[in-house]
């Protein structure tokens, strides 16, 4: 395909484009849902097409199509160029790109057993078995699901890059919903909203052992119906690893996206409180907090070899012992600061413009055990598994809810609570973190639905985290 792609890109260069790239993407997806011992959803989807991005006189144009014919290649290239010409007339500052060496290479994410090649009967049987374990009195809905995703992507640019990548992602989860009167409560494993996702094959599904965990989460969902309302006030909060992952996502991942910082997403997702003057000078959190963007992390669903500008995958420190030190960048945004891109541009399939996206944004482990953290807490809550999340458009004021919480009194776990919530302001909250659990407790979480851009693009991003403790947090928000 390289020759065909090069021909189109050469034509664009000849027509005055200062830069152009082309991606050809093919995706295969499989989704299976068993709900209450009923095969509720069994979908297989295939989607392919190409997109061409053109930089002309300092302005971008992007066009894409499903139809991979030589004629359509030409039409789409012309349309992208036409849009870039039009945008250039209305542009203020001309886009410049940070330099990058031409990328050439082929990469496949590690995968022992291609999930799309596993017999569907086998997958469905496993989901039925997990559901059956959750079907106990009090549970209204027992749900078990698999999502598999295989993407093949070719990338070529006018600067001589040509890369070929293939990633395989497997995701699975179980969820029990209990209902009584006006109260309904959920419990999930290994995470809420479809479970967890990793860059691996079906071997990950076997590792999860959904059936083994099913009865416990069903019992917890039923127990939550009778549990008291979580208390309100200021308390010490210990977040489990998955909730720390989402906290990182919303309050560190998004605000360090340099396109947000520069106002490029202000019309929809918003901006960022981490303005350029803060880089290297701003106290983001306590000295326990070191957060890195790691696009090389094994099994992370934000892992790749080259981003959608041909920039090699990197590890970038964003927060260093509490100090804000780095952004997620692209060639365009990095150039504005005389820097090189740290390689975070990804588009959602063939039909989306690449944007700065989180890779795997990971909190480095500390040296505590979860037991030690609990033992050294007088009055607090252990909050487990996300249920609700929201944050403002500058990424400062957040509020999260978890599926369940345990009281911590004088160093011991106590009552189970329902409807637990906490709220805070990003730097104050991370500044209040006085303990991060060790590598033993560190887990990698995959979020398959990070939204950004217009039309909204969803992206696979990863977060590695251990449980962490935060002091003096406001909990129990709202009138219940």
């Amino acid at each position, binding site marked *: 395909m390289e020759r065909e792609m090069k021909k189109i890109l050469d034509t664009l260069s000849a027509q005055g484009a200062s830069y152009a790239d082309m991606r050809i993407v093919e995706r295969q997806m499989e989704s299976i849902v068993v709900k209450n011992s009923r095969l509720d959803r069994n979908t297989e989807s*295939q989607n392919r097409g190409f997109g061409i991005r053109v930089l002309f006189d300092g302005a971008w*144009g992007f066009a894409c199509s499903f139809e991979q014919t030589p004629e359509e290649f030409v039409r789409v290239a012309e349309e992208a160029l036409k849009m870039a010409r039009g945008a250039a007339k209305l*542009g203020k500052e001309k886009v410049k790109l940070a330099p990058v060496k031409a990328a050439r290479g082929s990469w496949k994410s590690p995968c022992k057993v291609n999930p799309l090649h596993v017999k569907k009967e086998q997958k*469905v049987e496993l989901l039925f078995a997990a559901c059956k374990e959750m079907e106990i009195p009090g549970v209204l809905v027992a749900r078990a699901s698999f999502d598999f995703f295989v993407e093949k992507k070719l990338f070529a640019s006018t600067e001589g890059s040509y890369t070929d990548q293939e990633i395989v992602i497997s995701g699975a989860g179980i969820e029990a919903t209990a209902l009584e009167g006006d109260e*309904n409560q959920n419990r999930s494993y290994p995470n809420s909203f479809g479970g967890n996702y990793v860059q691996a094959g079906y071997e990950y599904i076997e590792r999860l052992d959904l059936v083994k965990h099913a009865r416990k989460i069903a019992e917890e969902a039923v127990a939550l119906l009778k549990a008291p309302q979580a208390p309100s006030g200021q308390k010490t909060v210990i977040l489990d690893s998955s909730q720390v992952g989402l906290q990182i996502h919303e309050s560190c991942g998004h605000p360090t996206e340099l396109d947000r910082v520069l*106002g490029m997403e202000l019309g929809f997702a918003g901006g960022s409180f981490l303005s350029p003057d803060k880089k290297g000078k701003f106290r983001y959190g306590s000295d326990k907090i070191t957060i890195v963007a790691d696009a090389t992390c094994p099994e992370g669903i934000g892992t790749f070899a080259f981003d959608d500008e041909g920039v090699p995958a990197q590890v970038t420190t964003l927060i260093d012992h509490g100090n804000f030190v780095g952004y997620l960048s692209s060639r365009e945004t990095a150039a504005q600061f005389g820097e090189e891109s740290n390689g975070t541009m990804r588009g959602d399939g063939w039909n989306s413009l690449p944007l700065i996206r989180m890779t795997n944004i990971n909190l480095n482990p500390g040296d505590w055990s979860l037991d030690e953290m609990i033992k050294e807490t007088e009055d607090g809550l252990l909050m487990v598994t996300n249920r609700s999340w*929201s*944050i403002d458009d500058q990424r400062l004021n957040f*509020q999260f809810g978890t599926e369940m919480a345990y009281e911590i009194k004088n160093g011991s776990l106590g009552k189970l609570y329902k409807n637990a919530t906490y709220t805070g302001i990003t730097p104050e909250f991370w500044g209040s973190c006085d303990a991060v659990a060790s590598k033993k407790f560190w887990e990698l979480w995959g979020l398959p639905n990070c939204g950004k851009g217009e039309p909204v693009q969803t992206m696979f991003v990863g977060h590695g985290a251990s449980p962490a403790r935060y002091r003096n947090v406001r909990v129990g928000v709202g009138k219940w």
Partner: protein
Amino acid sequence: MVGKDKLFALIESGLAASRATQTEIVALGKTLRVIRFANSAIHQPMAERNVSFFIRVLHEGKVGFASVNGLSEKTLLDAVKLAEANAALPKATPLLERFSSRLPTPSANGYYSMTGKIGSDLLEEKVGTLLERGSGSVSYAGVFWTLDAELAVMNSNGVKLHHAWTAANCQTVATKGDLTGFSAQASPDITQIRPEEVGDNALKRALQFRESVELPPGDYMCLLEEYAVAELALYLAGMAFSADAVEEGRSIIGAKKGQKITHESISMWDDGLNPQSFQLPFDVEGTPRKKVVFIDQGIAKDVVYDLVTAKRFNTESTGHALPDDYSEGPVPLNLEMAGGTSNKPEMLKQMKRGLLVTRFHYIREVHALKTMVTGMTRDGVFLVENGEIVARVKNFRFTESILRAFSTTVALSKERKLVASDVDGGFTMAILVPKMLVEKFAFTGSTKF
């Protein structure tokens, strides 16, 4: 647009190749043009052309599904085989007895050629018109998009339907320092959208006051602009207005059907035939879209169904199915809330002390059955005292039950505004709502911005 004849021909070849007792094939074609702008310059113009096919087959009541994109007959026939294999799985559960039959379908003319045929150059010019309004006093960021879409549905029961429609939406945030304002206009007909007005309205709101004052959180009387009402309506619909939500025990409509759940001035429904909205006269199963009333004068009424959920609830489909890889259940795409008799000046006069809220941001459910959500205000909150807007206020976080807030409704505007959701995928949600004055809205956190 691919066109009716070509889509029908491809679908017919798929139906002919199917060995299943019943087969349904849906084609969704779209041309999407998007001009994103930021810092008062176009930064992400894009155009997309796509066509997708969604295939379902029935085998002894079991449903098999597959989807592909592109116009290759071979790819489509491969997908038909895949759907057949999925329906034949031993563990597949009987979900349906038959696909839709041919039924009279209301006519709808939601296609506006000026919207459908607009080129990127003209759309960029329109954005240029908006950007000029800032004239250095504010910076604009936003989007202007147009959708030219077509849906073809055929099945082996004789259903053969095609509908083309258009949609357009222009919206912007105007910024000056920490001050922001928002405005938007949506319509199936792009000639009804005035980008200069969108720019002017956002600018006026951004510059209304030079500074923001900080107020403590608490319960405030609130005049919610249409964008704010639309956001709440959208989340209420997701939590409560579908048969799936009822089955999963998270729908207040399912839990309290026939009971009063909010103020008697509140009526909400879905109407796919309203010409003010993005019309869709039938769903992807070929079922005519029915008007479905969710809340009638404060009373919980009904939810939307597709064929599968209708069978489960022993009722009829309301024509709200989406393809299996879009949604796990039926979805109301054309939400409406009844207007009242008031208008903004009258509503302001009724406020001794309260807040005017332009829009909300990042609403998420906290407890679906209690219709409790949290979110932030954005792009313009103002203090109203004795009927006058007297100050700009820093943003709030709210944690509130939507129906509890609606139960304190004081007035609704007579005029309603169409608010468009994101255009991702081709099925755009349209929300037609009034302004709303509520006695109490619970803000649970304040900010310094």
